[in-house]
Every structure is written in structure tokens, then in C-alpha cells.
């Protein structure tokens, strides 16, 4: 028997066209309201499972480490001139970020992953009064100073990447925040367990006075510099 030969399929009883006709008609089932109710119940169960998965951490967040340790500082550039931007990865390779030096010298850093559908966020100096962070996929626009959404469909602000500038002009990334989280809160959250000395130095409330060693970061307030 070759592979193309089909096994004999069971035939309907010959000489009984009424039975065959009835079977054919019965096979053309309509989608009833009970079927829709079953489908809706299935969708509802899927949404419940999805909610449990999201709350359980199935969605990655920018800067969430795998080993629950604070991200180590990373030198990302020797210098950054006003009006320029720099794309980099921090703290991990999949965490795309962008650093921008505004015209007035302010240094800001954000996640370069749009909060809408994870497209790449670009620095557009020619847009707006002082430039904008722009997502070309669906015209999402973020404020360059705060990372808040100013236009378009993104539902949340961009997570920040805390940047600091050393005396020699080099730019360092020292931490991350989540959407809508302040730089102080984000740094304290990351440093309070892993590096309490540094957390106490920057004034985190939970570890005030807990550490004595001075941090080895730059002399300026992390996050932005005027």
C-alpha cells in the first residue's frame, strides 16, 4: 500500500438517503446564544488567567534585574553635547535606553521602549519647543524633561534611567525607575537592600543612618543636571 492510498473511509449506509441527508443537515449547526455564552465564559477565564500572570510578573519591566540586585553603574559616554542624544543599553542588553542633553544643559535618560506597544522611542530635536521623545509607530510623544505622555496612545510615562555626570564630563547610568516613579524613590528601592550605604547617603527614609560609607558616584544629584 503506497503512502498516497487512503484507507477505506466508513461509508454511510447505502440505500438510505434519508439518513445521509439528515446527517448532513444536522452537521450544519448554527452558532446559538448558548454557544456565544460559552465563548464569552472562555474569554473571561482567559482574561482572569492573564491578570494573574501580569500580577505574578510575566511582563518584563525596564531595569528589573534577574538576580534581585541593584544595577551597577555603567559608563555610557565620554561626553554628551547639548542637543545630542545617545542610545545605549542599561542595565541589561535588552533594556534599550536613550540619553539626551537638552539645550539648556539638562541631562535626562529614559527607557527607549514605548509604553504603548514597545516600539523604539526616538529623540527628535526638531519637534516641539525643546525637542520631544517621539514614537513613530503610533505618533506617541513624551515630554523630554519628565517623560510624561503629552500626545498619542501610550498609557504610561517612560521609565527613567538615572544618569549622572562626572567631573571629567563622562556620563554614567546608575539606576532606573518605573513608569511614573520618582528618581529618589526608584534609587532608594534599588539601593536599600543591596547597597544601604549609598541609599543612606542619598537620604532614603528606610535606611537613614544605616550606612557610613560615602558613595563613589559623581558629586551631582543623580538623574538630571542643569
Amino acid at each position: 500500500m503506497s503512502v498516497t492510498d487512503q484507507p477505506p473511509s466508513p461509508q454511510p449506509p447505502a440505500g438510505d438517503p434519508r439518513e445521509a441527508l439528515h446527517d448532513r443537515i444536522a452537521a450544519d449547526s448554527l452558532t446559538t446564544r448558548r454557544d456565544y455564552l460559552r465563548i464569552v465564559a472562555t474569554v473571561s477565564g482567559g482574561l482572569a488567567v492573564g491578570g494573574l500572570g501580569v500580577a505574578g510578573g510575566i511582563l518584563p519591566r525596564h531595569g528589573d534585574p534577574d538576580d534581585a540586585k541593584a544595577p551597577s553603574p555603567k559608563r555610557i559616554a565620554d561626553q554628551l553635547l547639548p542637543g545630542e542624544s545617545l542610545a545605549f543599553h542599561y542595565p541589561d542588553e535588552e533594556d534599550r535606553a536613550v540619553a539626551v542633553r537638552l539645550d539648556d544643559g539638562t541631562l535626562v535618560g529614559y527607557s527607549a521602549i514605548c509604553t504603548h506597544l514597545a516600539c523604539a522611542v526616538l529623540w527628535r530635536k526638531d519637534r516641539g519647543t525643546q525637542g520631544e521623545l517621539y514614537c513613530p509607530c503610533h505618533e506617541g510623544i513624551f515630554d523630554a524633561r519628565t517623560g510624561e505622555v503629552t500626545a498619542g496612545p501610550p498609557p504610561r510615562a517612560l521609565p527613567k534611567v538615572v544618569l549622572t555626570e562626572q567631573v571629567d564630563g563622562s556620563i554614567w547610568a546608575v539606576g532606573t525607575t518605573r513608569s511614573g516613579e520618582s528618581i529618589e524613590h526608584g534609587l532608594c528601592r534599588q539601593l536599600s537592600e543591596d547597597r544601604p550605604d549609598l541609599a543612606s547617603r542619598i537620604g532614603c527614609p528606610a535606611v537613614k543612618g544605616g550606612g557610613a560609607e560615602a558613595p563613589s558616584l559623581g558629586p551631582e544629584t543623580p538623574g538630571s543636571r542643569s
Partner: protein
Amino acid sequence: MTDARQSRNQEPPERPAASRPPAVSEYPEPPEYHPGSARPELNRPVHERYPQIRATSGYGDPRIRHTGPGPGAGTDQEPERSSKLTARLVLAMTVVVGQLWGLTVVIDAWMEGRTGTAWWGAGFLCLSFLVVLGLWLIDPKDR
């Protein structure tokens, strides 16, 4: 000169016997007329041929109160069943719309680091699922 031209100039020949209209008695008798199909299985009543197609299938006609024949005849003896089924379906779909909104809240809360809010939202989604499950399971078991 061709044969056709020659034939035009000549007298028209006598019509052959085959082209003459035959006498009435030469026609064969027409078959006896029967409405419907020659296949007997296609001549059954409509309800018998298509058992799923009924007089009011797909409609909730409140005037129909009894099965036929007779006054108020129809397929649904209890029109409230249809209304209740529609109401359950609408309620379930409304709950699912609320779940979609709740899922956006859960995602926003998780992304902003508010893990407790995310878990409360997940609990809301599970309770909503139980409500939909209940709406589905209170279906009468006689069908």
C-alpha cells in the same frame, strides 16, 4: 456558378416529409405531471427535510405560546427562556468588557510598581470570571 445559386434559380423543391409539422396524433404522450421532485426523499414536508428550520427559529415572538397546531402555536412554549438567555449573554458580555478594563488597570499597576494593586486587580478579574461562569452554568439542563 455554385450549386446554391443554381438551387435558388430553380423551383423550390418539395419539402421533405421530416420538416412538415406532424399531425397531432404523431406527438408522444407527455408524461403525467407531478409537483415536486422525481426523488421521493425531496418531496417530504419542509419540517421533515430540514428539522432545524422551524417556523420561529431565531426569533423570540412573544405571541407564540404553544406548540402547534392551534392558536398561539410556535416552537417555544416559554418565551421567557429566550429573554433570560439573552439577558444572561448581555450580562456576561458586560462583565467581560469590565474585565478588559480591569486588565489594563492591572498592567498599568504592575508596570508602575504597584504590585499590591495589581494583585487586587487580578482578584477582581477572577471574581468576574466566577460571575460569568455562574451565568453560564445556570442554564436549564433540559436541552
